[in-house]
């Protein structure tokens, strides 16, 4: 039930405004002095109405193109994707994951016996690392970065998010979080006489639902490569 308390201040403000506008209206309309002439009033209203109609026609074009690429991404769908990705990686069946979840792939030539691993910002490192030891020592390290969709208010915004950054220098492989992407946009809610019936967030409720996709780094390293991690991060080995 909408909390009436929050309605009080609004109502009070409206009353103040109504007194002000009532005076304004009464003065222009009701004083027997020179009031707005009907032909002038008709012109103004006509202009306003045509302005509204023009905007109604224009709006689909201006908001249309940004709108188009924000396809629907319901939270339960992308949640399921995240868990299937995680489980597949954990069970070593990464290949079963749909290829377009692959954000980025790296291939490094690495002949040294030991590899150090470090992570840029330990606490906030959001990507889960999986390591798979290859059957042979082919001196090659393959790194594949998978990520499932993210959404804001059920709209797919994955295209905005940047991939993580991998750099190999000497015997140190550093993994940095992706560059923080900034996204701000505006949402237009329908006016409350409509939202009251369509069940959307109506009057005064403006929480937005934000869901970040699951991101995984899948390393495939040569059989005998010794891996030690310089920073506190959870690495999961795959059998």
């Amino acid at each position: 039930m909408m909390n009436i308390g929050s309605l009080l201040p609004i109502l009070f403000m409206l009353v103040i405004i109504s007194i002000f506008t009532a005076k304004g209206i009464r003065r222009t309309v009701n004083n027997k002095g020179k009031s707005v002439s009907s032909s002038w009033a008709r012109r103004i209203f006509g202009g306003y109405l045509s302005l509204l109609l023009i905007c109604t026609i224009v709006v689909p074009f201006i908001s249309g193109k940004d709108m188009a690429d924000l396809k629907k991404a319901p939270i339960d769908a992308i949640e399921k994707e995240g868990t299937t990705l995680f489980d597949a990686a954990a069970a070593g069946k990464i290949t079963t994951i749909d290829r377009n979840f692959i954000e980025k792939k790296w291939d490094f030539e690495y002949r040294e016996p030991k590899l150090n691993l470090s992570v840029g910002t330990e606490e906030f490192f959001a990507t889960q690392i999986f390591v798979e030891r290859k059957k042979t020592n082919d001196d090659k390290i393959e790194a594949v970065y998978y990520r499932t969709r993210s959404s804001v208010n059920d709209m797919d915004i994955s295209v905005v998010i940047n991939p993580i950054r991998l750099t190999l220098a000497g015997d140190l492989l550093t993994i940095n979080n992706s560059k923080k992407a900034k996204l701000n946009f505006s949402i237009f809610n329908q006016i409350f006489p409509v939202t009251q019936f369509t069940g959307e967030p109506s009057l005064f409720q403006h929480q937005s639902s934000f869901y970040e996709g699951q991101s995984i780094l899948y390393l495939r390293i040569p059989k005998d490569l010794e891996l030690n991690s310089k920073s506190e991060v959870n690495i999961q080995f795959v059998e």
Partner: protein
Amino acid sequence: MSVITCNGLTKKYGRNKALNNLSFSIEENKITGLIGRNGSGKTTLLKIIAGHLKETSGEIKVFSEKPYNNLMVSANIIFIHDQMNLPAALNLKEILVVAANFYENWNSELANRLFDYFSFNPSHYYQDLSKGMKSTFNSILGLSARCPLTLFDEPTTGMDAGVRHDFYRAMLKDYISYPRSIIISSHHLNEVEDLLEDILLIKEGKEHLHLPSEDFKEWSIGMQGKTAIINEWTVDKEIIHTRSIGLDQSYVVVRNQFSEQEVQRARIAGIELSPVSASDLCVYLTSKTEGGIDDVFNHG
């Protein structure tokens, strides 16, 4: 067939009785003058006839129906008065168009010709007009509507003499070409006297005299002469008005019940007999005291 009949009509505002048991009936297609002092109830009566006010008691029938809140009566009456409310947002031309839409017998050709004759500017607004121009515009509405019952309450306030004359002339000519019942309430009885067929005189909310205007002229007679002789002649007569003139002369107005011979004898006796105009008679009849304002001064 009478267009208005009313008997025992009373209207109270709080304790004061605007109309006090008023009874009269007006035939259709006549021009009647409604004459009375300020506050004698003229406007109240007209508002009740037009259905704007409800009578406190008594009975009134307009087109043989109760006028209050009656659509048919409203459709056949136009009530012209000086505080007329006309829409503020419409210019004069638009008001004529709106009025034409409301009144069945509206004669737009007459309206337009009057409109041009009195040189109104169609795009002006009603409140911007002067008092006289407003009255003139109201009268155009009143005449062009050609309602079976047209009520004019002080139609000529603010009009200059020329316009007043034109208005009366226009009213007469339109009345001749399109007969209807017209009631004019006015203070300038002398101007409108000749146009009236009947005169209804109202005093303190009650009808005082209701006669054809010609009879009004012969209803009383003025006698001027030596006070002694005058008193002698008017000993048993009802004196309507007396005024002393000079040292020993006085002017008296009494009911005109003299026969031809009596008039001759009075003349010989040195009394000057003169007719009393309707407007003077009305003033005398409705004044508080016989002497009128003079009594205020010579009370000593």
